[in-house]
């Protein structure tokens, strides 16, 4: 029983946050693809950068062991193909798997239709897997990370992603001002100040990350390749 409380609690926090951000609303998610409302990008990249910096610093302080965290394994070509099919479906549905559950939970019929479609698609894929199992299991690269792909220290990649995200946030605010000028008013200045403060905090954290990264891959932060004994493969999704 206690084993169920942790995923249940994490799920409740996950669903609550998605709904608060408006991501149970297909209209809002669709705005990402029409470039009228870039909430999806802003939420996703704020979340990725927050968790990425948190992981980096917690491991640097020696409070967590990165090897104990399951890194999704890379199957390059299947994931490229899967991403293309998934993205087209995402734009059509206006919801992704997690957000469709939130949409359905808040009473939206289109959310329930996406949930039913997801189940159908995964069931059909499973039933027909013998036809494409070779492709499904092809191009396996194990737990492959950007630092080892780019031959850069962990902290440098963290800094790079933080900079790209901040540039993306600035671009997103500019694009929204052009495509959806109506909703803006005196809230705009506040948003910009908040973005600026958050961006600076991110940069300071990320620059500090690099400054304190010696070129020592065996330090906790550099050890991105999992030790076989500790590594447990990520399950499913």
């Amino acid at each position, binding site marked *: 029983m206690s084993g169920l409380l942790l995923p249940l609690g994490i799920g409740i926090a996950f669903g609550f946050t998605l709904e608060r951000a408006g991501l149970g609303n297909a209209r809002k998610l669709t705005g990402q693809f029409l470039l009228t409302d870039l909430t999806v990008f802003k939420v996703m990249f704020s979340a990725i950068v927050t968790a990425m910096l948190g992981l980096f610093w917690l491991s640097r302080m020696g409070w*967590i062991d990165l090897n104990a965290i399951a890194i999704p394994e890379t199957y390059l070509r299947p994931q490229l193909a899967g991403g293309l099919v998934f993205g087209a479906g995402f734009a059509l549905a206006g919801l992704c798997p*997690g957000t469709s559950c939130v949409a359905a939970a808040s009473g939206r019929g289109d959310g329930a239709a996406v949930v039913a479609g997801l189940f159908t698609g995964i069931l059909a894929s499973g039933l027909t897997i013998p036809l494409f199992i070779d492709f499904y299991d092809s191009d396996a690269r194990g737990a492959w990370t950007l630092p080892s792909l780019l031959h850069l220290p962990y902290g440098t990649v963290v800094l790079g992603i933080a900079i790209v995200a901040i540039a993306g946030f600035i671009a997103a605010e500019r694009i929204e001002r052009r495509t959806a000028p109506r909703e803006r008013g005196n809230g705009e200045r506040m948003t910009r100040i908040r973005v600026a403060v958050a961006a600076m905090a991110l940069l300071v954290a990320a620059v500090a990350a690099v400054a304190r990264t010696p070129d020592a891959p065996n330090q906790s932060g550099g050890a991105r390749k999992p030790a076989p004994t500790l590594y447990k493969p990520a399950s*499913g999704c």
Partner: protein
Amino acid sequence: MKYSDPYLSGVALGLVLLGAFVFAGRGLGASGAFAATATGTVAAVAPDYAASNPYFGRYLARPGGPWREWLLTEIIGVVIGGFVSAALAGRLRRSVERGRGVSPGSRLAIAFLGGTMMGVGATLARGCTSGQALTGGALLSVGSWTFMLAAFAAGYAVAPAVKRMWQ
């Protein structure tokens, strides 16, 4: 009630993800819960077939079986959390979110089709926006970033069709 600031929501979501990493040793997910449900359903109908099927068989082989899958419990939490948040904000309402260009029936059909495509894509990619883009993104997995960039590229490629639906 207005939706929360996207950056603050994103930081909150990042802290939830970080909490999952620290306390559960794994990230968030969504499509895996559907995979577990499909596996459990097939196994209930045809147990021998499910065990011999390479996709369902791998899920069945996990300790506890498909109904005890971590992501299934988590997604039940997502539904509860989404419901509670919408209720507190006065946003619980039976509706079909759609543009003026399509009838409610067409919107549901397109949503179902989009969901089916995402199911196929998430199977191939071994995860979705939660398990790959968010979780694998923060863990700097090359496959996860590949998935994320491919998904957004394809999303923008079909955007003209989407635009007509939502006008």
